[in-house]
């Protein structure tokens, strides 16, 4: 029970869960939203690519990109939660979110059509690294502006470096700012373009030789179609950035005890700090359990060795086997003890370096967390709320 994490869930308006892939980020996001709903708040969780069974649990199979409410009978079957709580969920659909955005900022249906049909746009909307992150932030903005939720929990995509979403708004504007393409967007009769034209056109002829001229045509057509919309996009990006920096927004880092995941978490915390954002909590999933008094790892190992020796010098079969089995158990206990000690030492150190307000450990669970009973069980470790 960590008051800080429970406090976040009860008081903040936005919680962004970050971490590398495979560390239980989506699960943590769902658990935090449930915690808020149980505390009587109106909460929504934006999931990104949840495992299929978790998606089923959250009712995300048919209802994708639009938030829908989950009846409280499902997440609070015993009726122990505080009254007034509501839980909604949605699964981010990058493409539809982007299409929506284009419709919002296009001056007319004709411009919308030209953009949505453009091949370069279709690739950006579907595949550009960073688009998913940008759209997650876009969805956050939309829910913040229009949803009327007390708390919005956002899962982030499992990107290689887990922090692309911070750059995502800037990346799109950078694309729009690209010098080469500013030339392309100029009206064809511009004297400036004619002057710069020869060099630029030579350049593109060569690029065309490598990837084919139609690619260039698509790109040029896209940038021309986009004309007049950049300002809207830019303002939106600035407003998302402001929302992330708001005092009512909290970042929760999710990790596993694996060294590479912890390293990523540290790196991520550094990046957040560079953006003047701070980590409110560090959630560590899949921590190995410890058994009994496990400080004396060497003593346990020594005992295992002694028993192995005693076993090999023993002639009586029953005694020999019993000693071998005991040796194996001591070795096993020593292994878990040393693993647990190493994990905890590294994580405590990481928590301190990161400057996380709270470090919360969730033990390695026997089964995958795919239903509300299991989600509520994780809630016990993560954040206390009435009835949890």
């Amino acid at each position: 029970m960590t008051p800080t994490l429970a406090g976040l869930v009860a008081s903040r308006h936005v919680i962004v869960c970050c971490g590398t892939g495979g560390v239980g980020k989506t699960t943590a996001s769902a658990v935090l939203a449930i915690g808020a709903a149980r505390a009587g708040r109106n909460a929504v969780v934006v999931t990104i690519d949840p495992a299929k069974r978790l998606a089923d649990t959250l009712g995300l199979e048919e209802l994708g990109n639009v938030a829908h409410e989950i009846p409280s009978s499902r997440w609070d079957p015993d009726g122990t939660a505080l009254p007034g709580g509501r839980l909604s969920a949605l699964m981010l659909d990058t493409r539809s979110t982007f299409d929506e955005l284009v419709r919002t900022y296009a001056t007319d249906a004709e411009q919308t059509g030209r953009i949505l049909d453009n091949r370069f746009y279709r690739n950006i909307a579907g595949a550009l690294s960073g688009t998913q992150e940008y759209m997650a932030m876009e969805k956050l903005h939309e829910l913040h502006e229009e949803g009327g939720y007390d708390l919005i929990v956002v899962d982030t995509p499992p990107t290689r470096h887990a922090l692309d979403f911070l750059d995502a708004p800037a990346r799109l504007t950078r694309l729009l700012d690209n010098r080469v393409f500013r030339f392309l967007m100029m009206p064809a009769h511009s004297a400036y373009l004619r002057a710069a034209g020869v060099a630029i056109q030579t350049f593109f002829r060569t690029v065309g030789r490598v990837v084919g001229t139609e690619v260039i045509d698509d790109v040029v057509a896209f940038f021309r179609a986009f004309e007049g919309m950049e300002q809207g996009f830019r303002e939106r990006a600035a407003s998302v950035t402001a929302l992330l920096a708001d005092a009512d927004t909290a970042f929760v880092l999710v990790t596993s005890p694996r060294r590479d995941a912890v390293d990523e978490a540290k790196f991520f915390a550094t990046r957040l700090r560079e953006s003047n954002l701070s980590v409110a909590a560090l959630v560590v999933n899949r921590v190995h359990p410890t058994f009994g008094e496990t400080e004396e790892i060497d003593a346990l190992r020594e005992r295992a060795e002694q028993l192995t020796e005693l076993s090999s010098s023993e002639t009586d079969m029953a005694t020999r086997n019993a000693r071998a089995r005991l040796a194996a158990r001591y070795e096993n206990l020593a292994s878990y003890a040393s693993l647990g000690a190493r994990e905890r030492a590294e994580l405590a150190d990481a928590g301190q370096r990161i400057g996380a307000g709270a470090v919360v450990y969730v033990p390695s669970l026997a089964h995958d967390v795919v239903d509300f009973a299991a989600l509520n069980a994780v809630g016990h470790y993560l954040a206390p709320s009435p009835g949890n």
Partner: protein
Amino acid sequence: MEMERFCAGSRVMIVAGKGGVGKTTTTAALAVAAARTGASVLIVEVEGKSGLATCFGAPPLEYSEAELGPGVRGRTLTPDRALLEYLEDRGLRRISKRLVRSGALDIVATAVPGMKDILVLGKVKQLEQGGAADLILIDAPAAGHAVSFLMSARGLLDAVRMGPVRTQAEGVIAMLSDPARCRVLLVTLPEETPVNELIDTAYNLEDRVGVQLGPVVVNAMPADLVLAGRSVAEDAAAAGVQISAAEIRALDEAAAFRLERRALAQEQANRLADRLPLPQLRLPFVFGEIGPLEVDQLADALVDAVAALPTPGP
């Protein structure tokens, strides 16, 4: 099957799987096991992560090859460098510099999905055909990116109708779909969600990429603990040793935890075997942080697991 024969199946082996399942560890163990048979091994890292070098206790990999251990070399392969090299080989050095410097590469790469992947795979193909090593191991990006990574060549044929990039894509497809040249080894943990995702990835890769799948590596299987149904107290009495009540409890609990984990892992590995008709190579759970010693142990386990694979008929 003998390790030597297993390694000789194809020159390129792509090790793929979801993030955090132990792809890099598996790649390292496979490299060590292959090098022991006398083969020269080149590991290619495509994601810019440092884990691989750590496995060998070596400094981070770079674009140029470095020795990682006896018979094992390693290098990275990034799209930008691969593109520069590719264009320079074709006398387009000046253009390539401008492409990268002006940021136009990013735009071109966006316009042509899979462009970066194809540059990397094209370079792999070049290494393969140049005989850079007897065995070239690719530590692939995390799935489902692995599917798009390997799908890139086909996607590209739709987007680009002419020019050298198209030629490159065709060459890559030829390599990927020839089992004598290239195989994909999928790695998973014996847990529900990773197993489900691996099954999806396997069918996707076979149907959509047409790539030959090698055995599935099931990583981090807890080793057995033979207790013959005896409790600690019973064994302590039979062994004639004194153990405190608290220690008895700790020993019992730790043993029970391990056995429970083992049973769950076996259940998942068996479920995988039922749903996906591919042979499995099961690797043990390693307690320690992965370093050269642990990689050596995993290589031993891999050799044993490969030995247990049926040898295909002549």
